[in-house]
């Protein structure tokens, strides 16, 4: 099984690595970061840590796009083109195929952001002479987790879709609903949870509301980022954000596999 997964992942990675679209999107992320660094909006930044704080905002919005693009066609693309019949005409299980896809798309994301974070490090060192290694390492770790979550969700959603169009709808829906729209709608969700708990005589505190907010991947990331810059005061919500990211990355692919296992592939 492990050997099968690695072989499938290697083969898929080889195919993805040659995709221009993906590297275009990774390049776009790099460009956003460079623009931010070079723009006057950040002229009052005086330390590398402050620069990373600025980069966090861009990362929260743009990084999921890159990760989702890396993953959303992983399975659905093969179903639409018909390559899946070649892959599953061979004696591999569907679980191995999906696991291989998760692995290769994760590796793609790691490679892409590894390069982007490397560039950010060079820029920061160039501008400020030194970077706090602890802050930088934590920033890379939390941001990478965020990227892997989005890639895993995209692969999981891809396993639910039989066509490119459907995969695109699901991935777009996830990005808008789970990331962007959540920033607008989170207070309504918090209000709803507060009323619901109120009906049972339980009062939702402001710190409790922060947990509710961190359920979405993007807010989960923004909560978890507190561990990067102020680990001493980050508190439980930041760890809850980490947990939220992990949960999304596990649950959605699991649901995807549950449907893909018995899906009609031809």
């Amino acid at each position, binding site marked *: 099984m492990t050997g099968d997964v690695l072989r499938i992942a290697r083969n898929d990675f080889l195919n993805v690595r040659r*995709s221009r679209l993906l590297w275009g999107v990774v390049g776009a992320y790099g460009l956003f970061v460079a623009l931010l660094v070079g723009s006057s909006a950040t002229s009052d930044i005086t330390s590398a840590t402050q620069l990373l704080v600025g980069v966090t905002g861009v990362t929260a919005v743009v990084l999921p796009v890159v990760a989702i693009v890396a993953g959303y066609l992983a399975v659905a693309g093969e179903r639409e083109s018909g390559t899946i*019949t*070649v892959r*599953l005409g*061979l004696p591999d299980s569907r679980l191995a195929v999906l696991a291989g896809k998760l692995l290769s798309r994760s590796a793609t994301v790691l490679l892409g952001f590894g390069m982007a974070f490397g560039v950010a490090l060079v820029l920061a060192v160039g501008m400020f002479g030194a970077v706090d290694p602890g802050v930088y390492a934590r920033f890379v770790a939390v941001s990478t987790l965020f990227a892997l979550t989005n890639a895993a969700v995209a692969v999981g959603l891809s396993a639910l879709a039989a066509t490119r169009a459907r995969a695109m709808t699901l991935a777009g829906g996830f990005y808008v609903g789970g990331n962007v729209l959540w920033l607008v709608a989170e207070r309504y969700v918090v209000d709803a949870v507060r009323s619901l708990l109120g009906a049972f005589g339980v009062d939702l505190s402001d710190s409790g509301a922060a947990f509710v907010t961190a359920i979405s991947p993007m807010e989960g990331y923004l909560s978890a980022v507190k561990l990067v810059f102020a680990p001493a005061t980050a508190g439980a919500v930041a760890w809850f954000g980490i947990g939220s990211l992990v949960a999304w990355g596990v649950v959605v692919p699991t649901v995807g596999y549950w449907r893909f296992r*018995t899906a009609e592939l031809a």
Partner: protein
Amino acid sequence: MTAIQTRDLTKRYGDVVALDGLDLTVREGEVFGFLGPNGAGKSTTINILLGLSTPTDGSGQVLGHDIESESRAVRERIGLLPDRYEPYERLTAREHLEYAIAAKDTADDADALLDRTGLAPEARDRVAGDYSKGMRQRLALAMALVGEPDLLVLDEPSSGLDPAGIAEMRELLREEAADGTTVFFSSHHLSEVEAVCDRVGILRAGRLTTVDTIEGLRERLQSESTVTLAVDSLPDIDLTESPGVSSVTPTDSGLRVACTASAKATVVRRVAEATTVRDVAIDDASLDDLFAALTAEADEPAPRRSKEGDSQRREVDA
């Protein structure tokens, strides 16, 4: 042991019956042609055998393994050339084959396989996205041959190949069959399968209407000749009394007589005795005509399957 055995295999998509109680037996070592017009259910059958699609009803075994619960064991021992297939467009032929060889854990040589299916050496390290349909087909066929499978399942293998390519493919199928490999392939051209097949199964609207050898199909043809005569005046004789004549139809210039092959000469002689014959045309139905007749009503909805469900030897009703 039988290579393929299905019992009452049925596939419904909502109200549409794609496959209607298929009872199919393919013996080990034979070359079996699976014929039918587009939409008859050929690919549906193959996809179910491969575990890509789940039957609504019925069961099947391939090389002794259950197609649903032992799909991986089935796929270990077969080579597949899918119908609606695309290669990975950013991978080369060699990378495709190396993947299949690793998946089947065999020691095949990619170049040797591509030599057999005739993909030019200079194309093997180019990405498959640039390949023509014929080259893709040669690549897919090479992948199907990986691991010396006991059963080759080929869905429309000649599609995209030019006549020379089709001839090469036939030769390759003969070689495989000579090695003892069972070959199961689908086609919508009878002429394609008659050259290589031991037996032919004809699928129409999801039902197997005929299973026979090529010789058996030819024998059926013996009863189907048409003699068209141009005559000065319609003869005053009753040809339907002659043995072997099934129908007589007057035409603008004479008569059209449907009869057995052996009755043709008598028909012509009797008409010539009664009137002046200006022209004679004899049309012996070809295998393609028979196939067309056997599959003519493919557009009709599939009839309800009888309780007995044994459609395998059902006589042709077209």
